[in-house]
């Protein structure tokens, strides 16, 4: 009997995940290949489903599953990322086990616990489980089903970060409380919609925002989305997660799958659950704008590669919110496209960070450097992905940001008002911030002279299982950028939006690419010719227009500016000294913007009061009893109202 492909997509990874738990401890290779196979089959199924038609599948008499072009797109993307991560994991867990070079004296984080069978089992089971539950979310036609899968995704995420061991305890708790807690909010939203429509079907109708329950339902849904994708103000789990979890886990869940899930739910919310009003639009755009700026600013000052990437990911989510917040079809298309592009780039960068962590033994920016020659393929892939994130034409990141700008302008023209100028300015500034962050990253990790740590290490080439996914992703960055109209928009995005989209500004990616290549060629010619003539001017080292103050760089004798090596860590340090930003950065360092810590601090006082009240003295407790008794008697006799 052939099962329906929709059911297969859910059941095959799920069952394969169960098998992964069941396989004997030493069969690590078998587990890894099983993951790859299951993901590949799922991808195949997803492509079939995406090519198929919109339909609803009844299971046991309930119309539980529904597939349309949007969910098809998400399914293909999710299965694709899962497959890449499964391939990457072929070599990753084994190499952790072989205990890479460690330097205990400097106290940097290293992967210290050997991964035992339990970790290996959990890792693969959760990799496949996440895919299965994501498929359920994308296919669900029933709110309770969606809610269940959403909660289980939080669980697999918690387990997957836990694989990294003791160090990850706090980060995993924080992640699960924030993301799993958002599931509770989604539950409230589900309950409200259920009561409102009398049904849990997702196509039951559109709820207009005009009453308190509808507002609460809407806000709960937005909170769940915001927590999942890591937008401000529920972003604070993401940097911790990225820092502590294994790199492929970060590349898989927060960098790609969670973005897909969150944005999918957001889009679904506005295409079938809630009415899109001006207020909603403004709310989304405010979240987007704050996220872009906050994430970008925080990324500027990070010293840890993984945290830097995490904040950069937060910042990019803001663009997606901004695009979808416009409420136009063009904005929707731009948002979806940017989501896809960002997932591709960020997944590639995190995978690159994983390679770097394994090879160099650290992800501290000031202890890296010079890796461009030692890990050439990793460098090439990360370079493409990084340039794409910072929206360099003709890569895909530029294409989607270009669409976002246009949708903002278009919505401004439609609605009147001048607010769109602000959004546009924020988007532009955000792009610049991203660019600045990426320059710092590329310089510190790959281009500057190697740090002493790196110099001492013998760095071998990255394993083929790690290079293949990264190169594939980098290739996609180029392909999605150069062939933007012919390939991604035509085959993926526009079908998913299912309404005609028009863009005012034309971007002929093909011609532009040729022109760019010609310009590069000319530039190289100029450079080569000048170099041959020996007309090279040397100046003191400077960063971004500021002359380098030698006092700021430890270990460099005064007067040696000419030969100062810039590690890249110092970039943008002055940002923290600017008047308003200074206090904001101080507050950020005190975790004032971290809602998890803030809630913990806010609850500490009432808890303390309650603890003092529970002093363990019997006489005291007897008084409690008598007072309680008196209160109840009074209420009963007097009537409560």
């Amino acid at each position, binding site marked *: 009997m052939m099962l329906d492909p929709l059911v297969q997509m859910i059941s095959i990874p799920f069952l394969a995940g169960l098998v992964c738990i069941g396989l004997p401890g030493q069969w690590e290779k078998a587990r890894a290949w099983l993951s790859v196979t299951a993901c590949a089959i799922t991808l195949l199924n997803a492509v079939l489903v995406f090519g198929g038609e919109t339909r609803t599948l009844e299971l046991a008499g309930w119309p539980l599953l529904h597939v349309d072009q949007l969910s098809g797109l998400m399914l293909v993307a999710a299965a694709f990322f899962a497959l890449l991560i499964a391939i990457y994991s072929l070599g990753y867990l084994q190499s952790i086990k072989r205990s890479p070079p460690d330097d205990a004296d400097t106290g940097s984080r290293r992967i210290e616990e050997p991964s035992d069978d339990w970790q290996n089992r959990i890792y693969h089971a959760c990799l496949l489980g996440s895919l299965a539950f994501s498929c359920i979310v994308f296919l669900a036609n029933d709110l309770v089903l969606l*809610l269940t899968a959403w909660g289980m995704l939080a*669980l697999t995420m918690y387990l997957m970060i836990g694989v990294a*061991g*003791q160090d990850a305890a706090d980060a995993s*708790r924080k992640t699960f409380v924030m993301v799993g807690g958002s599931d*509770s909010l989604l539950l*409230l939203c589900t309950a409200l919609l259920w009561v409102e429509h009398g049904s849990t079907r997702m196509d039951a109708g559109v709820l207009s925002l005009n009453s308190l329950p509808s507002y609460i339902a809407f806000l709960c849904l937005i909170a769940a989305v915001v927590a999942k994708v890591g937008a401000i103000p529920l972003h604070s789990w993401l940097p911790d997660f990225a820092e502590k979890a294994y790199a492929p886990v970060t590349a898989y869940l927060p960098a790609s799958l969670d973005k897909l899930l969150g944005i999918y739910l957001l889009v679904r919310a506005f295409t079938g659950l809630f009415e899109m009003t001006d207020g909603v639009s403004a709310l989304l755009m405010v979240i987007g704008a704050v996220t872009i700026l906050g994430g970008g600013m925080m990324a500027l000052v990070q010293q840890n590669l993984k945290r830097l990437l995490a904040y950069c990911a937060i910042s990019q989510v803001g663009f997606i919110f901004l695009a979808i917040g416009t409420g136009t079809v063009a904005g929707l298309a731009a948002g979806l496209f940017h989501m896809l592009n960002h997932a591709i780039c960020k997944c590639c960068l995190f995978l690159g960070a994983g390679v770097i962590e394994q090879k160099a033994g650290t992800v501290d920016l000031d202890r890296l450097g010079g890796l461009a020659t030692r890990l050439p393929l990793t460098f090439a892939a990360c370079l493409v992905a990084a340039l794409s994130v910072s929206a360099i034409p003709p890569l895909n990141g530029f294409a989607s940001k270009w669409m976002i700008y246009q949708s903002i302008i278009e919505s401004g023209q439609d609605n009147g008002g001048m607010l769109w100028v602000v959004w546009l300015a924020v988007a532009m500034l955000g792009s610049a911030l991203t660019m600045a962050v990426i320059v710092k990253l590329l310089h510190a990790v790959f281009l500057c002279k190697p740090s002493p740590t790196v110099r001492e290490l013998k760095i071998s080439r990255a394993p083929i299982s790690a290079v293949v996914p990264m190169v594939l992703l980098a290739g996609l960055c180029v392909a999605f950028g150069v062939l933007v109209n012919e390939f991604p928009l035509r085959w993926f995005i526009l079908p998913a939006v299912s309404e005609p989209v028009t863009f005012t500004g034309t971007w002929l990616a093909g011609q532009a690419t040729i022109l760019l290549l010609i310009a590069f060629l000319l530039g190289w010619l100029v450079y080569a010719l000048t170099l041959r003539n020996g007309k090279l001017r040397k100046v003191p080292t400077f960063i971004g227009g500021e002359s380098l103050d030698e006092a700021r760089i430890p270990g460099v004798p005064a007067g040696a500016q000419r030969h100062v090596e810039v590690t890249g860590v110092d970039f943008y340090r002055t940002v923290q000294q600017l008047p308003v930003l200074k206090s904001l950065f101080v507050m950020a360092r005190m975790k004032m913007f971290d809602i998890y810590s803030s809630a913990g601090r806010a609850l500490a006082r009432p808890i303390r009061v*309650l603890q003092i009240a529970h002093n363990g003295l019997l006489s005291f407790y*007897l008084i409690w009893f008598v007072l309680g*008794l008196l209160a109840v008697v009074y209420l009963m006799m007097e009537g409560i109202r």
Partner: protein
Amino acid sequence: MNNLIPLLVVIPMGVAFAIPLAVRMNPRLGELLSILTALTLLVISLFLPSQEIIYHIGNWPTPDGIDLRVDGLSKLMLLIISGLALVVGIYSVGFIRQFTGHYRYYTLLMLMVTGMNGVVLSGDLFNLYIFVEIATIASYALVAFGGEHEDLEASFKYAVLGGLSSSVILIGIALVYGMTGTLNLTHLASRLDGHVLTPTLQFALALLFCGFGLKSALVPFHTWLPDAYPAAPAPISAILSGITSKAIGLYVLVRLLFNVFGITDDLLLLLRWSGGITMVVGALLALGQWNIKRLFAYSSVSQVGLIVLAFGFGTTAGIVGAIFHLVNHAVFKPLLFLNSGAIEIAAGTRDLRKMHGLRSTIPVTATTHMVGSLSIAGIPPFNGFWSKLIIVVAAVNAGFMGWASLVVLMSIVTLAYQLKVQTAAFFGSNTRSPEVTPSIATGSRSNAEPLFMAVPMIILAIGCGALSLLTLTGLDEPFFVASAAEVLMKGVFTW
């Protein structure tokens, strides 16, 4: 079949007194007899019919003789009581070896079961009171069973506060008898039906509310609990939190309010507020707690609050949610307490700050604990998620938006404190800093997690998953708590 009903009380009571004699022949007979008794009780309760039966002892008619009554709600309670007694009995075989005087333990356990079964079956207030006392006094002794300083102190506090509540209950019962001239629940309900309560009866009801409120640990009457549960041996904490406080406290409270005195809007409001306050206070205290058993104890307070809150919605959905959550709580909270026993043996401490990396020492506990704590935090696919969903939907449906939001917020707090235990106890490896946890190095898997302790934990963990499958039948009639909820929704007993 109906003639088996008195056996539910007679068998455990007989076994309780037979155990001290039997252990003279063979010291293992105590364990064996208790497990067999629990099994027998479970079988009998399984075969009880779901519709209402009133069994007249000695065939005396209702107001004159003693009645035992069985209906959907009491059948459900009986099932939980005997099921938990069975699980706890098996666990005790592995756990109680570290104490002396095993037979007393099993005698007391059987007495507690006698008391609970009696409470659930009693058809009149006075017998109900007697059985409450049997169960409570057995539990005072069980709390003190460890014999350490803090065990005795906890037991003493529990006994004083419990004695106070019992006397308040007795005064309440006396007033009710004085005003109505009957103690039979059915008869009493028919006499009260249609009348506005006189001030004396209102006073009596307030006394009963507070008395049974203490037994079920409603704030501010919960103060005995955070001492008693941690002091008791782990299996006793399990049964106390899982069912005893529910059977002799909450069950009676709900019975009296819904089926005898008749529920009013005022009483529902009182239930909602006391439940809501209990839920919040318990959850916050659990969040601030580092002693693993005390944390679970406060968590019990919080969960009772949630159940009472859901009863307070007064709608069918609310009552279904409350009873379902009560059943779920009777599965996952005992599981957590049983786990805490294994954790305590493995880590040699109850302080969460001093333990870590226990997964390799007690792998079964690590997994079952994951299931238990995710269930209680309401994470799908486990049972707690479904009862939380039903309760929230019920709240929204009844128009209590504020309470619905509060339930949701508290479930996030619940998740936070459960994860605190998870990450503290099981994360990482046990190779580091052995000086902090000396017993990890010496404690072997066999004595922290013997088969007799592992099996009950596995059973309960499977229960957490299995109960959530039951929701697939829909929440209407085939749902297993529907008949129990119906009993309460039908209002006062008719005669």
